[in-house]
């Protein structure tokens, strides 16, 4: 047994003897760890879930405007509607030789707060989550006809729907939207959970979207003009415009040439956005907020570790006699420094481990909540490089915090020698 081992054991036993006082200090280290690691974990997971939802799409095309707004709205159904793009333009782009597939997206309606997405059958065959996961139907089937809806997993679970249920869509997404109650939809399918915005959406076909708005103009029902659900088939239900067109290319390397081709084309002014670039803009925006949060958490950690140092320092007076006994047994002044510093190190190590455990527990228990309410899928992964770095930083700070009391103990032991002040 080496001297250091002996000191480690002594420090641990001594700390255990004062566990009442020290447990409060430990708690502050745990809270700091949970904050710092939790923030990092959440940040990573939020970014991942953004990236994941759009990973299979090469270009998001819509009316000219903010590329970030377009991606947020078209893919994540966040924020407000930009202008629409013409359907004929969408059809034209889908015929480009470089384009492998297109998925039209038409937004605007909602059902009890969940966005309604009108699209076509390509959504099932072409849309990809992560790199290569298609959207799967776990109950029922895809929409085939008018007034058929397929629900994302959270919509179905949250509202308790099953196939065969009848639902009413609302116009817009506000607090008291006007209902399309004259044209109810039937739930025909429910999707598997994906950990993406798909889970929080309802899917209908473009013709249905057109059909519910056939007797509306400019966001309001036309006065004195009603088309009954049975009669809509008499009308042309080809959409005139859509919100956005998700596009996949045969060859990803052509993405910039296709982008400039679309943006410089004659006629309607369009934006073609690389979703990764738009998300980088978003992450930069989030970065500022993250830095503030990180700063606050770091300050909490510093406060916690100062408390740790203060507690050990306050207890040191009583332990001067103990230090004198150790000195009489041959302990060097350096051993005394190590002994006292180790105490803070032990507490920090314990705090980090417990903090990581608490965080894991929180992630396990709040995972479903985060997914349901924020669409953030929390995966239980091992610590990332940055998380190791943060843990190492806390440990280093704990060591530094312990050096203060350690040095004080050093001077105590030099001054006291074998004398034991009471």
């Amino acid at each position, binding site marked *: *047994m080496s*001297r250091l081992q*002996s000191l480690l*054991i*002594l420090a641990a*036993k*001594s700390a*255990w*003897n*004062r566990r009442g006082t020290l447990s409060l200090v430990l708690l502050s280290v745990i809270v700091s760890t949970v904050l710092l690691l939790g923030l990092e974990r959440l940040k990573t997971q939020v970014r991942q879930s953004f990236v994941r939802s759009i990973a299979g799409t090469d270009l998001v095309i819509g009316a000219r405007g903010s590329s970030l707004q377009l991606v947020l709205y078209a893919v994540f159904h966040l924020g407000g509607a930009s202008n629409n793009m013409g359907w004929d333009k969408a059809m034209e782009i889908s015929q480009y030789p470089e384009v492998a597939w297109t998925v039209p997206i038409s937004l605007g309606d909602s059902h009890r707060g969940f966005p309604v997405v009108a699209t076509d059958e390509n959504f099932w065959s072409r849309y990809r989550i992560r790199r290569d996961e298609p959207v799967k139907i776990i109950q029922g089937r895809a929409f085939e006809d008018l007034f058929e809806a397929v629900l994302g997993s959270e919509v179905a679970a949250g509202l308790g729907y099953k196939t065969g249920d009848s639902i009413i869509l609302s116009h817009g997404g506000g607090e008291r939207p006007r209902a399309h109650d004259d044209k109810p939809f039937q739930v025909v399918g429910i999707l598997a959970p994906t950990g993406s915005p798909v889970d929080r959406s309802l899917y209908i076909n473009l013709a249905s979207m057109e059909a519910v708005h056939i007797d509306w103009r400019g966001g309001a029902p036309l006065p004195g003009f009603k088309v009954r659900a049975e009669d809509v088939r008499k009308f042309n239900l080809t959409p005139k415009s859509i919100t956005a067109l998700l596009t996949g290319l045969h060859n990803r390397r052509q993405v910039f040439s296709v982008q400039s081709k679309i943006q410089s084309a004659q006629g309607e002014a369009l934006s073609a956005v690389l979703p990764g670039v738009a998300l980088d803009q978003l992450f930069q925006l989030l970065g500022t907020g993250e830095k503030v949060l990180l700063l606050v958490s770091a300050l909490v950690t510093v406060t916690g570790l100062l408390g740790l140092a203060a507690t050990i320092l306050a207890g040191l007076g009583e332990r001067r*006699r*103990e230090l004198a*006994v*150790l*000195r*009489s*047994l*041959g*302990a*060097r*002044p*350096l*051993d005394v420094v190590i002994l006292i510093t180790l105490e803070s190190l032990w507490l920090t190590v314990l705090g980090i481990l417990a903090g990581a455990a608490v965080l894991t527990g929180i992630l396990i228990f709040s995972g479903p909540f985060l997914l349901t309410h924020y669409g953030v899928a929390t995966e239980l992964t091992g610590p990332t490089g940055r998380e190791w770095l943060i843990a190492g930083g806390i440990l280093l700070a704990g060591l530094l915090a312990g050096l203060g009391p350690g040095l004080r103990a050093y001077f105590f032991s030099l001054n006291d*020698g*074998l*004398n*034991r002040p009471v």
Partner: protein
Amino acid sequence: MTDRISQPPTVRLQNVSFAWPGQAPIIDIQELTVNPGETVFLAGPSGSGKSTLLNLIGGLILPQKGDVFLGDLTLSSLSGPARDRLRGDRIGFIFQEFNLLPYLSVEDNVTLPARLSLLRRRRAQEAFGSVQKSAQALLTGLDLEESLWSRKVTALSAGQRQRVAAARALLGRPPLIMADEPTSALDADHRLAFVDLLLSESRKAGAGVLFVSHDRSLADRFSVSLSFSSLGLKQSDNYTPAEAQK
């Protein structure tokens, strides 16, 4: 006997003078010697510089004048860490009170010297096969029954605690036991019993004893009795070897 005399003294102070900064010398000793196996009683009231003497012999402070020898080594020629190590190897201290670490069990307190001194660990292992067995033998010798060994030291009486301290001082057979008023917290009945136990266990271990106390009633238990105030004189002046008393 001749064998012992041929060995260097366990501890020897020669013309040692020490003063705390800005104060008159508190220690002024011409000569103080403890030979191997010798038990020395040193009488001195409080304030006579006992704790300074303890620190000098332990090598925590160095005299301004003169030399302190531990066996064949001169303390002033050694570095601080070397003196720390020597103290751990060669001296078992027993203090007036608060000898024990409150967070360790009785047995863990007794084995503490083996954690800090390699030499004493080895000796304790050689003597009884293991450090633990050495500690248990000493505890038994000092009348501490087995049921107490795993207890917290805070649960013991003052007398029991001093005996645990004695066991710790003796673990690993250091050549010198240095006791500073170890009986002052004990009542009269227990004082003599403690001193007798300490001396008989020290004899078994072959350790010299330097016992500092104001309680002169204990002096006749020792082979040599000295007075603090007379140490400034040549030690031979009031040196009363045990043999000469008989």
